């Protein structure tokens, strides 16, 4: 089956305005009669919930954290892109569109990406109006910096806490709507399933994490803004609670999942120091503006970094990609690091890192300038490693970071289930096979503030006359029972291993077989191993406590159960794509120079997967990617 993205006809730069002009509207009196559920309160969820409430819809907003302000958008450091061209350096909406399509290795939709670039202009205005304290020049104008994969400065930032400040802007907008009684906010409520009535998304089943009670919520449409699932690798830059369960449950109810194996490994993270480690902290990519990446030229180098002379250092990014150097895109930088580390040239005790060196920048600009730009990152590095990066280079390595894949959505951000929308990192849409730095805050915000308010009206206008969903409907009872049974099953196993044990084991397997590089052989092995892990999980898991109480272990176990199923899909996704593109690097498909070898003839499509059954091969549907305005080219950063 072919899936239809419903992209509007016409010239690229007119598509979104044409869509908006033709989309159905709902008058203010009628909006009050419509309920919308928004799951997740990160940048996408908060901005959507606030914007929809401002329009007059009845919004219910859910998050598993104890406050909406804590969602993981808060951790984004570097900034947000916008084609304002304040720097007069040749930027434009088209240039940003071009960079993003190319950065995504020609595996995203032209129409979506153009719209993203177009709406970026409004986002900066909106954030400033909310009081987001972006960096300013001395004259009072907004300041910009540059990020990987581009040659202009279009990134707006608030020191190394850009995500926090943008999220607080959206959170405050959401709190304003809560105070006006337009949003009912349910913190510490985790979505555990989706309810469909007559084939349409009409509600969710959630667990109140503070008392364990299972609750039902009905609405006229459901918006999933549940973020990414890079935590499937256990070690990642994500928060401990980030998970795939909400989108996975939607997938099992019929929403297609697109390109789930496209996971970005961020090149600048702190390397693993021991088995006990629970996360790999990200150091903003902005560091690569001034830091130089290198490894020793010799194997078994034992000297300290500062004792290795210039002539014995390999600045491999500058060597291999002279026109982009240390600002080569993330997929390329991460893979290059892995290649050096695998060749035995890694640094640090576990030989699992590369150096990120600021000595040249400090010499040229002075320590105070570097401190002003990256002070909080250097102090974070010191806190975690106990080393001073002003004195010696940082040790960094790639870590699982961003899910380009996610729920398949059409141009309206609606999944294959009518009435179920997915926004922000939870969907697959704009980033193709590799996301450019500072485009994730952008996509989350644009989806929430500027797209969903238009597209959801186009859907909801058709729901006005239909019968309202009610939580007394038998579908709600049925799915609530399924959810309760699932949780009881996990508690009743009473085995000998914690959910963390299984999570770490699965993460390790995926890192090696479905991580920075993949092969058919490795993926097939992984699929078999996941079957064994699943079997072991359901025989030997131990969850303490009961369902009807606060129980962090139960939350973890339910997420790992879903990860095990998701991992199977990721491996099939990676296996079926016999080419290398962006973050997806198949060892069998590379150039003689070790670069990704894309196959536009056979694989210029989005893989949209339909659920079949546990541990079985999922069903593949294809959305052909048509390039009308840009010609796919070899993505060279040399």
């Amino acid at each position, binding site marked *: 089956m072919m899936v239809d993205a419903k992209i509007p006809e016409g010239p690229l730069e007119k598509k979104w305005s044409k869509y908006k002009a033709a989309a159905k509207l709902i008058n203010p009196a009628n909006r009050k009669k419509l309920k919308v559920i928004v799951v997740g309160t990160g940048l996408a969820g908060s*901005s959507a919930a*606030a*914007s929809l409430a401002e329009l007059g819809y009845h919004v219910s907003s859910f998050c598993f*954290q*104890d*406050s909406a302000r*804590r*969602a993981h958008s*808060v*951790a984004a450091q570097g900034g947000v892109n916008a084609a*304002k061209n304040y720097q007069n350096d040749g930027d434009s909406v088209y240039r940003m569109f071009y960079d993003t399509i190319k950065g995504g290795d020609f595996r995203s939709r032209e129409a979506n990406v153009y719209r993203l670039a177009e709406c970026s202009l*409004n986002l900066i*205005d*909106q954030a*400033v*109006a*909310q*009081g987001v*304290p*972006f*960096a*300013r*020049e*001395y004259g*009072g104008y*907004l300041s910009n910096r540059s990020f990987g994969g581009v040659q202009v400065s279009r990134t707006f930032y*608030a020191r190394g*806490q850009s995500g*926090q*400040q943008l999220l*607080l802007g959206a*959170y*405050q*907008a959401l*709190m*304003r709507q*809560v105070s006006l009684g337009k949003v009912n*906010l349910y*913190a510490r409520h985790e979505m555990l399933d989706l309810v469909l009535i007559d084939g349409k998304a009409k509600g969710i089943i959630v667990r109140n994490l*503070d008392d364990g009670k299972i609750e039902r919520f009905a609405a006229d449409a459901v918006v999933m803004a549940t973020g990414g699932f890079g935590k499937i690798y256990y070690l990642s830059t994500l*928060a*401990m609670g980030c998970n795939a369960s909400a989108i996975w449950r939607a997938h099992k109810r019929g929403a297609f999942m697109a390109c789930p194996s496209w996971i970005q490994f961020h090149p600048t993270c702190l390397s693993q*120091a*021991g088995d*006990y*480690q*629970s996360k790999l*902290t990200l150091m903003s990519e902005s560091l690569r503006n001034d830091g130089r990446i290198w490894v020793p030229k010799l194997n078994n180098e034992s000297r300290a970094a500062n004792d290795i002379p210039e002539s014995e250092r390999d600045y491999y990014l500058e060597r291999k990609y002279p026109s982009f150097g240390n600002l080569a895109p993330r997929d390329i930088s991460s893979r290059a690091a892995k290649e050096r580390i695998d060749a035995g040239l890694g640094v640090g005790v576990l030989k699992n890192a590369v150096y990120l060196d600021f000595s040249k920048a400090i010499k040229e600009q002075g320590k105070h300038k570097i401190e002003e730009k990256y002070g909080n990152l250097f*102090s974070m590095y010191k*806190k*975690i490693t*106990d080393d001073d990066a002003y004195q010696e280079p940082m040790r960094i390595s790639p870590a699982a970071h961003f899910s380009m894949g996610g729920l398949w959505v059409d141009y309206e951000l609606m999944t294959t289930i009518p009435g179920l929308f997915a926004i922000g990192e939870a969907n697959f849409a704009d980033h193709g096979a590799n996301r450019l730095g500072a485009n994730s805050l952008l996509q989350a915000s644009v989806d929430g503030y*500027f797209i969903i308010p238009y597209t959801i009206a186009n859907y909801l206008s058709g729901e006005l006359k239909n019968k309202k969903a009610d939580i007394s409907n038998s579908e709600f009872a049925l799915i609530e029972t399924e959810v309760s049974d699932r949780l009881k099953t996990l508690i009743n196993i009473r085995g000998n*291993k*914690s959910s*963390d044990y299984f999570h770490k084991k699965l993460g390790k397997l995926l890192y090696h077989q479905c991580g920075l590089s993949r092969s058919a052989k490795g993926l097939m092995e992984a699929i078999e191993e996941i079957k064994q892990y699943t079997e072991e999980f359901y025989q030997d898991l*131990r969850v*303490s406590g009961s369902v009807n109480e*606060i129980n*962090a272990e139960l939350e973890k176990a339910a997420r790992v159960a879903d990860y095990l199923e998701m991992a199977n899909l990721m491996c099939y996704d990676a296996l079926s794509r016999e080419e290398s593109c962006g973050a997806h690097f198949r060892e069998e498909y590379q150039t003689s120079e070790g670069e990704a070898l894309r196959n536009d003839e056979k694989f210029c499509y989005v893989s949209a997967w339909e659920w079949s059954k546990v541990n079985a091969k999922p069903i593949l549907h294809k959305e052909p990617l048509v390039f009308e305005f840009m010609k796919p080219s070899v993505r060279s950063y040399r």
Partner: protein
Amino acid sequence: MMKINLKVWRQKNAMSKGKLVDYELKNIDPHMSFLEMMDTLNESLILRGETPIEFDHDCREGICGSCGMMINGQAHGPVAGLTVCQLHMREFKDEATIYIEPFRAKAFPIKRDLRIDRSAFDRIVQSGGFISVSTGQAVEANTLLITHETAESAFDSAACIGCGACVATCKNSSAALFTSAKIAHLVKLPQGKKEATKRVLNMVRQMDIEGFGHCSNTEACEVKCPQNISILNIARMNWEFNKTGGVLR
């Protein structure tokens, strides 16, 4: 490798009585984070069939504001300027005894063990911690000129992560630092000045309603704030409050 003796506050729910329980941990790597040490303890409790310790945590990089506990009587532990997720075991001596308790305040009821209810902070923000601008109303960003110094100063106030260490540290359990940081962030910016009067009156009133105590200028909050939020924010709040004469004109 280190040996550590823990005395951890265990409490089933807000109603029940809590107590300190002893745990002994061997083979603790000094490079572990404090929460990874807690993970290790929990892992062993699960395998022994005991109930693991509930504590708030999420991002583990010091920015989400979820984690927070009193460690040897200090919010977020002995090191200044960081959250407990960034604290490492190397800060403790081998064979040390460490007391771990929840953040305590009347306005922060205990849910279980070290987990607390900080929803009072959300309600303070709801009472006025925002600029009333709806999506679509914004003017072109560079028409609002804000000097570098003003933007940086607003950022310093806005950097608060809402963890509650200020409240836990204050002998009066005052939320003055949290509340004033938001008031100051917004009032320093031109776009935030329009609602300044209403904002400060409503937020201060909400702070009282929630049961937080008053600020008596001990400055302890600033010392334990992981984001080094300055008490000058409190002075700014008081100034803004006094300007209103206490009533909405």
